[in-house]
């Protein structure tokens, strides 16, 4: 017994040691490319999926665009959005209903199979068919038919005039997937375990929660990709992300908090880039009866009480543009008149509050914390201005998922901050169903009629004019009060060049060694 027990003890200790080393062996890095040939990008969260049509997440898309390609690409030269060829060499539509795409014929999937029009048809129909795919809700909604006209020619027919159809081919759900590899008995799950695309980098490994590892695709149709290896890391903790940037652990680190900018800039190896992005901070105002904000004078007072310039300069350390508007200048259909100029009038705000007889009235501003850069701090500053204007303003911070549920249940405060983003066109403002999600109790006759006119707009000019008017109405009635357009702040290592993109994508091919 004694001997056996001793043996068991011995085995147990060996077993314990082995069980410790086993996971260590499992996680040791696969053969790594030299650091100089490797681009490492640190994002705030892990990619959620390798399926381009099944996530609603910028960081995920930013990783996936290196594996797959869009039919058309978006670029932002001089702050203006334009479409440039991707897998489609050219496209045309005379009536905004029937669209024809001429595809490249020199593109191969990572397994060597040629890319054809069937893949495009498959990708579109897949999104439309499977309601569980998250992109299904918003992508290709107007598409009625996809016709393969030839191996490299495809025709898309929409149900109505759709001036925005091209937007569907860029962004979440737009990356083209291989029909031949997905339509197997094993199905999608098998495919996305080791997916193939047509993009510049091949999928190597996705260590969930940690990193996406990609390797150069030497067969890429646009030439040999720049990096031997690309790693997209997930570092949720900002402090840690900054530390990684400072120590050269990563080349690009996204979303640097403004207070760390000096540190990053003073560090000899790193610099800061900042650029406009498709996002705006706006107060959403509840105007139903019984709320203090049902009085238009109070809503106007709130609008006037906020010193947007001070918020932009001090809370955001200058990395934001103060505005009364809802869409930054890069977005087609934005209203450039809604500026922050002369928007701050504390005197008049106080007067309006007095007129309305609500001095000292309690008002609650709900806000998430940490969802968007400095969201809570912006809200706290707004609360301060509202207090100055004579309201008993209080902040209510909610964790993001709770915040969402509350918004859905219509139980947030009289005001709530929302950082809407990732839009490609101002027309979202006229989506009444969408409006009901955010401003369930606000309605305006002209606004409703505008939402009907928009589809019939004869020209792009007319369409944009409708959109500008819509923004004027909703901000004029203070159902939404624009505050600012935040900027992205990234840390970039001095060994690489990257300017940043309005759509917050970081395509490895656009990051270059110096």
């Amino acid at each position, binding site marked *: 017994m004694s001997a056996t027990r001793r043996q068991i003890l011995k085995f147990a200790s060996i077993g314990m040691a082995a069980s410790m080393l086993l996971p260590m062996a499992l996680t040791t890095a696969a053969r790594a490319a030299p650091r100089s040939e490797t681009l490492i990008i640190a994002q705030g969260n892990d990619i959620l999926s390798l399926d381009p049509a099944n996530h609603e997440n910028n960081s995920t898309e930013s990783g996936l665009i290196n594996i797959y390609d869009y039919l058309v690409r978006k670029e932002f030269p001089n702050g203006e959005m334009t479409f440039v060829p991707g897998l489609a060499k050219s496209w045309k539509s005379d009536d905004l209903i029937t669209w024809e795409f001429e595809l490249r014929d020199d593109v191969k999937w990572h397994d060597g199979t040629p890319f054809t029009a069937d893949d495009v048809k498959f990708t579109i129909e897949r999104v439309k068919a499977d309601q569980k795919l998250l992109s299904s809700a918003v992508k290709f909604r107007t598409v009625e038919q996809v016709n393969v006209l030839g191996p490299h020619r495809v025709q898309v027919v929409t149900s109505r005039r759709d001036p925005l159809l091209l937007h569907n081919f860029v962004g979440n759900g737009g990356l083209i997937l291989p029909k031949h590899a997905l339509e197997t008995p094993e199905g999608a799950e098998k495919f996305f375990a080791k997916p193939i695309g047509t993009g510049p980098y091949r999928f190597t490994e996705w260590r*969930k929660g940690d990193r996406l590892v990609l390797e150069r695709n030497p067969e890429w149709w646009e030439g040999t990709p720049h990096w031997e290896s690309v790693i997209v890391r997930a570092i949720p903790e900002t402090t840690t992300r900054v530390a990684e940037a400072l120590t050269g652990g990563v080349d690009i680190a996204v979303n640097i908090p403004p207070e760390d900018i000096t540190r990053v800039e003073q560090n000899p190896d790193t610099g800061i880039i900042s650029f406009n992005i498709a996002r705006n901070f706006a107060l959403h105002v509840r105007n139903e009866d019984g709320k203090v904000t049902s009085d238009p004078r109070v809503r106007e007072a709130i609008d006037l009480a906020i010193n947007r310039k001070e918020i932009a300069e001090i809370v955001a350390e200058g990395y934001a543009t103060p505005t009364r508007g809802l869409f930054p200048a890069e977005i087609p259909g934005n209203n450039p008149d809604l500026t922050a100029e002369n928007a701050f009038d504390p005197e008049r705000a106080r007067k309006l509050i007095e007129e309305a007889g609500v001095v000292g009235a309690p008002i609650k501003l709900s806000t998430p914390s940490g969802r968007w850069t400095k969201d809570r701090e912006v809200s706290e500053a707004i609360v301060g201005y509202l207090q100055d204007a004579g309201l008993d303003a209080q902040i209510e911070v909610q964790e993001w998922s709770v915040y969402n*549920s509350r918004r859905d249940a219509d139980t947030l405060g009289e005001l709530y901050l929302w950082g809407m983003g990732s839009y490609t066109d101002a027309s979202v403002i006229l989506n009444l169903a969408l409006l009901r999600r955010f401003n369930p109790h606000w309605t305006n006759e002209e606004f409703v009629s505008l939402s009907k006119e928009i589809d019939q707009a004869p020209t792009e000019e007319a369409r944009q004019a409708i959109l500008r008017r819509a923004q004027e109405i909703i901000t004029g009635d203070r159902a939404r009060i624009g505050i600012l357009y935040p900027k992205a702040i990234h840390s970039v290592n001095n060994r690489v060049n990257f300017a940043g993109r309005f759509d917050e994508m970081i395509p490895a091919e656009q990051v270059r060694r110096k």
Partner: protein
Amino acid sequence: MILTAFGRLLLQAVPVLFTVSLIVFILVFLAGDPTVMMIPDDATEADRLALVAAWGLDQPPHVQYLRYMSNILSGDFGTSYSYGTSALPIVLDRLPATLLLTAAAMVVAIAIAVPAGILAALNRNSAIDLAVSGASVLGKAMPNFWVGIMLILIFGVQLRLLPVSGSGTFAHLILPAVTLGTAFAADLAKLVRASMLETLGQDYIRTAYAKGIPDWIVIGKHALRNAAIPTVTMTSLNVIALLGGALVTETVFAWPGLGQLIVNAIYTKDMAVIQIAVFVITVMTLLVNFGTDIVYRLIDPRIRL
């Protein structure tokens, strides 16, 4: 003996797992509709309802739960809302990293706590004892994320000795393991000290001294072995806590373990992932308890499985 214990484990596991899954289901159900978070900002209410229907979330809760349970019995552990794939592999993928960190943290904790605790017990009321007690109280009183960030700033940024975050090499393991390990070492050292003191006061230690054998044998063989039981108990409790509980440290060090996964799943109300993660952790917990029982038996022949 081991088979009996294993059978008992299985019989124990079923009710616990069932209760756990029910509790989690109720809580997550009460937490509300996950689709609010899933769909894009520019989707409409109708889109959302379509998604709700697609996931079967429009069914009454008991129907959802029954369907969920019957799926589990047929081997289908559900699909993650946010990942869109089977929840089980998502969770299992994270397990190695969690196990590794847990083991490393325990090694750190034991390596610090056991010698410190023994030294303190042998030099009771001395400066050593005071230092050990003081350090252990301090170690317990500091929030984990604070310690982690300080370690990053000192060893990662200032001294540039160790990688700041991530996983993959042994060096990556050190800081998170130390962060967790020191926190547990604090409690453990105190416990080792107390159980050593208690053991040293036992009659059989007097017997051992009366035999005239060397002191290190009395301490190392007679006392330590007996003092090991509470130490093993606490270590196993800590292991259990770590298996699903290193949420904070994993986030600070971007360590791809279960903790981070679960935090995100909770943020997004990803029911299937939460359920499976809790399920896996519960199974691990029961396994750890089982292993602990075996270790008890190895240490103390009186304990029967």
